[in-house]
C-alpha cells in the first residue's frame, strides 16, 4: 500500500476535472476489478476504425456496385441481379474456378508437406540452427513479383538449356497450355513454404520434451513418435496452416503475372486475374465486382468447412 500511495496522491489532480468519476482511487480500482479496463476498449478503436474504413466499407460499396452496370467511370444504373445471372452462365468464369481450385489444392498440400518436413529439420538439434531458419525464411521477405521474373527467366531460358533432352522443359514449360500451371505451383510453393515453416516451428516448440523422453523409454521409434505425439500436438497449427494456405492460394495472382500472364491462351487465368482483367482493363467493373462478391462467399465457405473438418481431429492437452 505504501508504494501505491504517492501516485494516488498525484492522480486526483487531473481526475478532479472529470465530472462524474468520483474520487480517484476508488474508481480506478473498480475499473480494473469490475470488468475489463475501459482503456482496452479504446485501444481497439483505432484498429476498428481503420478496418471499417479501409476494408468493410469498400466491401459493402463493392457489393452495392455488383447490382449496377457501373463501368468504372461515367453514369450507371441499378440493374438488379442481372450480373449474377450472367456470371453463372459464363464458362470463362467456370474455367477460371477450375484452374484456381486445382492450383490452390495442389499448392496447399505441397506447401504443408514441405514446410512440416522443414520445420522438423529446423527444430532438430542441428548446427547453425538459427542461420538455417533465417535462410529458409528469405523467400517470404522477397517480393513475389521480383522473384517471379527471375523464375520466368529460369523457366524460359535456363531450364530449356539444362534439360534440352526433356521436351517438357526444352520447349519452355510456360508456353505449354497443359503444364504451365506446374510452373506457377512451383513458384507458389517455393515462396509459401517459408511462412508455414515458421508457424510449424512455433508449434513444435510447444510440445513438452518429457513426452519424447517418456516415449523413447517405452521404445517408440522416431516415426511412431511423429504420428503419435508430434503431429496430434501441432494439430491447431496444422489447421491454421491449411486454412491460411488455401485462402492465400485461392487468391493466386502475383505469381501468374510475371510467369504466364494468364497464358498460354487462358489456361492459367485465375479468378483474381480474371477480375482484374475484366474489371479494370475490360471496362466491366460492375460485372467483375459481382465475380469478386461471389468469390468472397466461396472463400469464406471453403475456410469454414476446412475449420470444421480439421478442428475435429485436433487434440488438446
Amino acid at each position: 500500500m505504501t508504494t501505491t500511495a504517492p501516485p494516488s496522491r498525484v492522480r486526483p489532480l487531473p481526475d478532479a476535472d472529470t465530472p462524474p468519476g468520483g474520487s480517484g482511487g476508488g474508481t480506478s480500482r473498480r475499473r480494473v476489478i469490475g470488468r475489463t479496463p475501459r482503456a482496452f476498449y479504446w485501444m481497439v478503436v483505432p484498429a476498428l476504425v481503420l478496418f471499417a474504413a479501409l476494408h468493410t466499407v469498400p466491401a459493402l460499396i463493392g457489393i452495392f456496385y455488383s447490382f449496377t452496370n457501373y463501368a468504372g467511370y461515367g453514369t450507371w444504373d441499378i440493374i438488379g441481379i442481372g450480373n449474377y445471372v450472367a456470371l453463372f452462365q459464363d464458362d470463362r468464369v467456370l474455367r477460371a474456378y477450375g484452374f484456381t481450385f486445382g492450383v490452390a489444392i495442389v499448392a496447399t498440400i505441397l506447401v504443408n508437406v514441405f514446410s512440416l518436413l522443414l520445420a522438423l529439420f529446423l527444430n532438430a538439434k542441428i548446427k547453425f540452427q538459427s542461420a538455417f531458419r533465417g535462410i529458409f525464411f528469405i523467400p517470404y521477405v522477397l517480393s513475389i513479383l521480383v522473384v517471379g521474373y527471375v523464375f520466368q527467366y529460369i523457366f524460359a531460358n535456363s531450364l530449356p538449356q539444362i534439360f534440352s533432352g526433356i521436351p517438357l522443359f526444352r520447349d519452355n514449360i510456360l508456353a505449354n497450355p497443359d503444364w504451365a500451371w506446374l510452373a506457377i505451383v512451383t513458384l507458389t510453393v517455393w515462396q509459401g513454404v517459408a511462412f508455414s515453416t515458421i508457424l510449424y516451428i512455433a508449434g513444435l516448440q510447444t510440445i513438452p520434451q518429457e513426452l519424447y523422453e517418456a516415449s523413447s523409454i517405452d521404445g517408440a521409434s522416431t516415426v511412431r513418435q511423429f504420428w503419435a505425439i508430434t503431429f496430434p500436438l501441432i494439430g491447431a497449427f496444422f489447421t491454421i496452416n491449411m486454412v491460411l494456405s488455401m485462402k492465400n492460394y485461392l487468391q493466386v495472382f502475383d505469381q501468374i503475372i510475371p510467369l504466364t500472364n494468364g497464358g498460354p491462351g487462358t489456361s492459367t487465368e485465375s479468378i483474381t486475374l480474371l477480375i482484374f482483367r475484366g474489371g479494370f482493363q475490360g471496362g466491366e467493373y460492375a460485372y467483375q465486382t459481382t465475380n469478386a462478391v461471389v468469390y468472397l462467399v466461396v472463400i469464406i465457405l471453403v475456410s469454414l468447412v476446412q475449420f470444421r473438418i480439421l478442428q475435429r481431429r485436433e487434440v488438446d492437452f
Partner: protein
Amino acid sequence: MHHSIPRPHAGPRRRRRLLTAIVVTAVASATLSGCAPSGDAGVTTLDFFQFKGEATADFQRIVADFEAENPDIDVQLNTVPDPDTALRTLLVKGKTPDVLTVNGSGNYGQLARAGVFHDFTGDPLVEQQNPAVLDILDALGSFEGDEINALGMANNADGIVYNKQIFEEQGLEVPTTWDELIAVCDALEDAGIPAFYGTLADAWTAIPAWNALGGQLQPDDFYDDLRAEGGDVGPDSAVSFSADYTEAMEKLQTLYSYAQDGYRSRGYEDGNAAFANGESAMYLQGIWTINPILAANPDIELGVFPYPAGEDPDDVRLTSGVDVAVTIGRDTPHLAEAQRFVEYLLSPEVVDGFVESQVMFSTLADAGPNPNPVLAELVPYFDDGRIIGFIDHQIPASIPLQPIVQQYLLDGNMDAALANLDNEWRKVALRSTRTEE
C-alpha cells in the same frame, strides 16, 4: 520548486516548437508557390495529360516552345505510367484534364461514347486532317455517333518489317500478293533462313498479323453486322467469326509455320534482338518495333511493307491506327486557351517534327514527306488513303482476344478458337445490352 522545474524543459521545447513552425511555414509556402498559378492575373494554367511515355522529351520541347510564344498560358505536362488507368481515375474524380493526348484504341472509343471529350465539329482543324484518319477515329466511337471527339497527330502502321540485306543476298523482291509472300517464305526456307521470328510467349505479338490479315479478308462492315447480331452471334447467325474468319486464321497459321524453331517460347524482347541480329528475314510486327531494333543493331537496313493478304496487289490495304490523337476535356473552363494549344500541337511544323522523331506518319492531309527511308514504301498508302484501322479496336476489351489467338497458334484448333470468339462476343453483347436497358 514547482515553478522552477518546468522552465528548463519549456525553453528547448518552445524553441523546438518555433523551429518546427518555421520549417512548416517555409515548406508550405514553397509548396504552395510551386503549385499555384504564379500570381500573374492573366496567366491560365492548362492541365495537359500526355499518355505516350516514349514521347515525353518531344512534348517537353513542344510545350516549352508554345509557352515561349504564348506567355499568357502555362501548360502543365503530365505523363504517367499506365495512362489508361490513370485517366479513368481522373475521370472518376471528375478531374478531366483540359488537353489530352490519347491512343486511338478501343479504350478511347469507350470514353468518347461516354461523352468525356470536346466536339471538334466545325473546327477548321478538322479540314486539315487526312480523311482516312478521321474515319479511323470515328469508327472507334464518338458521343452519340455524330461528333468528332479527337484529332489525329501521329499514325502508326502495321506492316511486315524486313531485313533488306537478307533480301538482297537472296535476290528476293518485296511481295505484293499472298502467293508472292509464300514464294518468298519458301525461298528463304530453302536457303535455311527462318522467314519470320515468332515470339508467341507474348500473346499480343500474334495480333499485328491477325489485325492486318483479318482486316483485309473479312467481309465489309463485318463488325457493324456483328454488333447488330449482338447476343445472337453463334454458328447459325448471319455473320460470325466461325463463318467469316477462317481464311484469315488459316493464313496466320501458315505464316507461323515459317517461323524459327522455338517460336513458341520466345518473347517480344527476344524477337527484337534476334531480328536485329539477322536471325530471320522478316518480322510480323509494325513500325513501332523499328526504334527498338535499331537500338539493338544501328547498322541493320530495314524496310516495311503492308501484309499482302489477297491475290490482287491493288487490294492491299495498310493497317494503320491513330497512335497519338489530341483532344480537349468536354467541360474545360479554359476552352479558348485549350483550342489555341491544340491548334499549335496540330500545326504542320510541330506534327512533322514529332512524327520524324517518333518514326510515325503525319495525320495531316498535306503532310510533308517523311524523311525516314525505312518508312518510304508505306508513304504511298497514306497518300492514296489505302489504309484501314486495327480490327482489334472493334472488339471489346473484355473479350480475351490475344490469348485465344495465341492458343490457336499453339494448338492449331481453329474451330475451337473461332467458336470461343463467337461465344465471348455473344456473352459480352448480352451483358451490355442488358446494362443499356
